[in-house]
């Protein structure tokens, strides 16, 4: 780790001001992605802005037909929240299967979504449920939020404050874990609800994406069989020592099928 200054603001406005004042400052939420990067000296921020003291970024609440989850909500809280379990059980299920206990007790939804790791879980929920990302300055629909590998629509001095999930009629998630890291090799979140029928695929490509052909098929016939025959082209998918693009393409179909089964 290189030396850095440390700030712990208590309001979103103060945090944003700190980030705006210093282009090399970085927000730290659960720290489970950022701190390992700092330890390996892969990142050299001048200061860290700790989000853990900001009350506005916490909490899980239901507002009408939506569930609003503060950015600084740990995976373990989402996994065990009765409010989440009642409204959108797939979110609790997903959170309960991120990493291990330590990760779930530290990592936050805001950190995960802002980071937009191609192999992360939450981006599939945000995109697949058609959520709206609330930031310190605006509201961004999921379809406009995830721009590419580790890239989002967030400006450097913009913070993710909360995520608004419309409550779906049905939703299911399935993933194949990378045998080493246990991050996502390929996963699918399928949902049917106010945001229409949506299929978000994570892990397989450089960024979470919607699978239009599967969405159309499920809109016509909500069943595992509807997606079973749809092949994801392997062209732009990831390929590494754990699996070829063809394997991931195949998994996309398998996971979509299983996600529909899980959705019930």
């Amino acid at each position, binding site marked *: 780790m290189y030396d850095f200054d440390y700030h712990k603001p208590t309001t979103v406005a103060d945090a944003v001001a700190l980030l705006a004042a210093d282009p090399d400052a970085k927000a730290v939420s659960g720290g489970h992605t950022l701190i390992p990067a700092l330890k390996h000296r892969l990142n050299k921020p001048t200061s860290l802005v700790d989000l853990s003291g900001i009350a506005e970024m916490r909490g899980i609440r239901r507002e009408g037909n939506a569930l609003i989850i503060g950015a600084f909500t740990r995976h373990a809280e989402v996994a065990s929240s009765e409010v989440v379990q009642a409204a959108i059980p797939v979110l609790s299920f997903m959170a309960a299967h991120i990493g291990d206990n330590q990760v779930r007790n530290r990592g936050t939804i805001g950190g995960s979504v802002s980071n937009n790791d191609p192999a992360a879980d939450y981006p599939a929920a945000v995109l697949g449920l058609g959520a709206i990302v609330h930031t310190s300055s605006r509201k961004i629909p999921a379809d406009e939020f995830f721009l590419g590998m580790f890239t989002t629509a967030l400006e450097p001095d913009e913070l993710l404050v909360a995520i608004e999930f419309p409550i779906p009629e049905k939703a299911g998630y399935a993933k194949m874990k990378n045998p080493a890291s246990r991050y996502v090799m390929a996963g699918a979140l399928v949902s049917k609800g106010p945001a229409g029928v949506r299929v978000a695929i994570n892990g397989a490509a450089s960024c979470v994406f919607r699978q239009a052909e599967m969405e159309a098929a499920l809109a016509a016939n909500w069943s595992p069989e509807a997606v079973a025959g749809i092949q994801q082209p392997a062209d732009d998918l990831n390929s590494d020592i754990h699996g070829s693009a063809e*394997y991931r393409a*195949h998994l996309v179909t398998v996971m979509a099928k299983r996600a529909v089964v899980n959705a019930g």
Partner: protein
Amino acid sequence: MNMEFGRFGSGKAVKRMEDAALLAGEGQFTGDFAPEGQAHLYFLRSPHAHARILSIDTAAARALPGVLAVITGADLVAAGAKPMTAALPFKRPDGAPLQAEPQTLLATGAVRFVGEPVAAVVAETLAAARDAAEAIEVDYDEQPAVTVMASAVQDPARVVAQTRYGDAAAADAAFAAAAHVVRVQIANQRLAPAPMEPRVVLAAPEGERLIVRLSSQMPSTARDQLVDLLNLAPGSVRVLIGDVGGGFGMKTNLYPEDAVVAFAARATARPVKWAATRIEDFLSAVHGRDVESEAEMALDAEGRVLALRVKGLANVGAYPRNSGIAIQLLIGPWVSTSIYDIQTIDFSFTALMTNTAPTGAYRGAGRPEAIYIIERLMDVAARRMGLDPAELRRRNMIAPGQMPYKNAMGQVYDSGAFEQMLDQGLKLADWGGYEARAAAAAARGKLRGRGIATFLEWTGGNALEERVTVAVKGDGGIEVYATTQQMGQGIGTSYAQLAVDIFDVPIEKITVIFGDSDRGTGFGSAGSRSLFTAGSAVSVASGKAVDQGRELAAEALEVAVADLEYQGGTFRVAGTDREIGIFEVAAKQPEGRIFIDSTTKVNGPTWPNGCHICEVEIDRETGEIEVASYVSVNDAGRVVNPMIVEGQIAGGALQGLGQAIYEQMVYDPETGQPLSASFQDYAMPRADVLLPGYVTALDQSVPCRTNPLGVKGVGELGTIGATPALVNAVADALARQGKAGLADTLQMPLTPARMWALLEG
């Protein structure tokens, strides 16, 4: 024998004495020591797989605050430090002596693998040392890297040595006359040992001496190698080893880094610590395995094996080590014919240098490679002949009546009842009920497969002598010192149990001490040798202590030695109530103790063996393999602590399953960059792989005949059996899908992606 104390003697599942402290976080690992004035060392490592070093500029680094020293390879050479070398009597194919690139402790002239230490910085803090290392400017001229054996074997400069064994002409004749010939081309992939505690060294000058604490399996060897490499005066180094968080062979030999830390402590006159990060261990600690073999077996019409032919290539890395070479060129081959009566062999093994980390000992060391080959061949042959794989093995097993049995490599097995293990294994695994389980799995959409491995291994490192000391102290304690090393395997508890057998006192009275090179010299713990060598020595020395106590007691009680009975720590004149305790006798001695310094030599290695049977279920959609059941029957001779032995076998088997399904150290074939140098990409088996259907049984009816305890080494047995048992199970599942051809060519690790490709193809 006092019934009460006997509960803690041998044969009992005594809880491990060291665990209370370890579980409470009260262990004393090297990293827990932080002496006053401790400085930190950081290694600058090669980012290239192969490059010439044109220049190293350390001026900027030296000028940074907190920096105490910047050390380069040139500094070490100037100070007379020796390189690490390999020297063994093997020859190259043209008859020339073995060639192995020597590794200077820090690189000089060239770097030959990614992660090779190039310079060391000592500073007041680790952060300051890292800052300074980043300020060192190294000018590299990159060279082509070779990591693939098929390329290395083309270049005579990369051939380290070759060994040939057997009778090629006799083998040719056997193959020509055979009813069946089966052939496999299989790799045993490179693995990273990855013990829980990475390497760590703390060297501190103390007067004229250097006190070196490190995480090692071999205290005396570490001391001797440090003295040798750094040209120090004999006796000037004391090695102390506290708790060790796993070794698995990786911590047997000294590393260049260890010697650099010792050098730095002397150069700066400060205690200097280096603790490897996980990535540093992945890059520069020894790796295991990494062989490619072409193997053929000739059988007659009844399935009797007529001859075995093996041609192996071993990638021993950029700077071959003695252990890395010997494991593949000599030790593995000792068990290539395993428990089968095969006297005609034709073996050739070639060690190759590549731009990868050196290989060395890793749990099993050569035996897993050898057993994997013959057990794969047995299965291929059984499928070809339409025979039950257990039956084919049975037809070839060496019978108990053939013991002692000399195998084709000249190794002598003292004991073994292989068919007995097989029979019990088949029963325990419900071999006959398999078809029903396979059908049930099919109904669930899963492919079930069943695999078996029957095998033995050689243990002991051929270091058959051990010296121990036993002190019966006037204060009521018994102290045993051994030069072997505890590293998580629980050996101290087993020694204490052996001492209880002889002294007949409560186990709490016994303290076992390890890891102080000033207290004794010995080989250390490796090759599953500790119990049968040092355990025998503990038993013998304890007996001598009681004998000496008896003489002293006879003097004290003024009776004849023969009149004394010994029980529960007390000598009593037979038929009377006149008695004296052994501790009381000790207290009366001038030094307040009875002290025995004793060396015991056992008469041979041990040959533990077993029958391991694994059933798997494969998800045909994802290619994932689930271990549905794992049953093993093991002959480890007489068992001192069944809980520890079962733990060793079960844990070892999990490690073997890890190789079969998950693990592989991958280097990019073009650039030589490691692609799996962290747990993000190096897949380890996790606790959730262990299932309820995991049964480990011990058959104690075949004691070893070459040591007084009758025990056989057990540390590596599980690892050796698990890998072929699992791969054979997967092969069986494929063959049942009409893919016998693919079954014969399966390669580890059987990752989901690989399995899917096989099932799709």
